[in-house]
């Protein structure tokens, strides 16, 4: 047993633990301020001001919201399944957080001769892992709807789950075309490939569009938010939840948004690559640490732009009806993704054979 302490690589374990704590805290803080940003941007679009009373410019508003959610009474419906009732928001939050494990937040920094990577787990199957975890997120919605012992919640949960699985297909298909270009599922490899050449969004514009639409659907975000709409289904699957469980559901949606933005920025827009700057030369001149910080900041800026885009679209477009949504997912996006895949494969083969057809 004592030998176990010598065998474990303590440096790596501590390094990963610190990184995990840092990224979890970062996700939560960003999700918190995303709620603030949503209210402010929504207000500015609607010709009003948004919260500006809690702290200067309303910066402390998310803290007030969090405190309010903590202080509310925890209601558990009498006839609901208690274990599943508490499990639902837990799974939603868990899967939202787990996706952040494979996203490369920055390149490495060098401490004491060790390379300290800013990625919790650089697995070979990065994108596939993300898909797996997102598919598990369906469980959070379904379990929440079922455990509420409420027909409307169940109906909303069924709609939500069917929406998520329909758009997952199109998402996967659009990524296959991208994988044909990059040849690797690992996210860090994809970012490194984009550092040398053009960002993949210019190689795959249609793929990016499909992925964007599917990301909206995965996050249950307008125009696809009919499973949590007030007027349609009485708040949907999180109707029966109060206090912190509801907080978990809402927060899981915002963390999902943040992670989807990060994944989109990584796959299509170069991730932590600073645009128009040759990163390797910059690293030689100014030191690796400074470069790593700037790269992290660059990814963060891209994520913020995407989040603004999410919020902007939410307050522009009205909600889809359920049959319109299904028709778009199955009859619109999947054929488009398939065609995109075929065209990409065609062009890649053509390029391989030197632009000749024989």
């Amino acid at each position, binding site marked *: 047993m004592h030998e176990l302490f010598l065998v474990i690589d303590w440096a790596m374990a501590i390094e990963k633990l610190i990184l995990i704590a840092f990224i979890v805290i970062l996700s939560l803080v960003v999700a918190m301020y995303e709620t603030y940003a949503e209210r402010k941007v929504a207000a500015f*679009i609607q010709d009003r001001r948004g919260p500006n009373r809690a702290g200067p410019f309303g910066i402390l508003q998310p803290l007030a919201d969090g405190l309010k959610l903590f202080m509310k009474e925890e209601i558990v419906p009498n006839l609901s399944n208690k274990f599943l009732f508490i499990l639902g928001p837990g799974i939603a939050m868990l899967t939202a957080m787990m996706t952040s494990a494979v996203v490369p937040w920055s390149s490495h920094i060098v401490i004491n001769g060790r390379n300290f990577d800013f990625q919790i787990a650089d697995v070979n199957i990065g994108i596939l892992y993300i898909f797996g975890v997102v598919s598990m997120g369906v469980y959070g919605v379904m379990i929440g709807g079922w455990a509420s012992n409420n027909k409307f919640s169940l109906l909303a949960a069924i709609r939500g789950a069917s929406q998520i699985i329909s758009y997952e297909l199109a998402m996967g298909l659009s990524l296959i075309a991208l994988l044909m270009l990059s040849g690797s599922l690992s996210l860090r490899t994809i970012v490194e490939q984009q550092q040398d050449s053009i960002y993949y969004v210019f190689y795959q514009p249609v793929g990016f*569009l499909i992925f964007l639409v599917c990301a909206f659907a995965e996050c249950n975000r307008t125009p696809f938010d009919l499973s949590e709409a007030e007027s349609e289904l009485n708040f949907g699957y999180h109707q029966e939840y109060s206090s912190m469980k509801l907080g978990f559901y809402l927060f899981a949606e915002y963390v999902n948004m943040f992670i989807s933005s990060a994944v989109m920025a990584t796959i299509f827009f170069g991730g932590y690559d600073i645009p128009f700057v040759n990163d390797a030369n910059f690293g030689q001149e100014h030191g690796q640490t400074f470069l790593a910080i700037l790269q992290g900041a660059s990814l963060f800026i891209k994520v913020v732009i995407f989040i603004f885009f999410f919020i902007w679209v939410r307050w*522009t477009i009205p909600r889809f009806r359920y049959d319109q949504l299904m028709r778009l997912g199955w009859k619109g996006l999947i054929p488009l993704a398939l065609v995109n895949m075929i065209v990409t494969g065609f062009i890649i083969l053509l390029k391989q054979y030197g632009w000749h057809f024989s």
Partner: protein
Amino acid sequence: MADSDEKSFNMKALTNRSRTVDRKPMTFWEKMYIPAIAKGMSITFGHIFKKKPTINYPEKTRPFSPVFRGLHVLNRDEEGRERCTACGLCALACPAEAITMEAAERLPSEENLYREEKYAAKYEVNMLRCIFCGLCEEACPKDAVYLSETFATANYNRQSFIYGKKDLLIPHPKLQPEEYEKAKGLRVSPK
């Protein structure tokens, strides 16, 4: 199709402003949704930079008109003597029965406090009953009560909404001139 509908309903167009509904199938660009979405998004983006009509209350307030019927004020004359004689006409006129008062006789030492021999020792307006109609202001023969431009602030219990004489009396013009001027506001006093 339109003709047969018109004939079966025997309808003639009454004005020339009616237009038939456009039931053409969507064009390719319309079916794509993307151009329409982009147009909509540019409109919302433009709204971010427009000027907001919100007024930052309580730092800035909207100006009220001078005839705004707000909180009651018990008036004094130019020398600072209270005008109210507790005649009870305002209490009679009030449709919500919000005003109550108790009269008292003026002692010879209090000549400079009250105008006439009868004055109101207790004058209470229940702000929760008051409907701010201004009938008390119209009914008063002594120009003693009028409705000013402020409004009643929020409170935690019902008792604190019964405003007594100390809350309603206007500040003394000789002893507290600035507050008197501020409280007078834009009201034009009849002469």
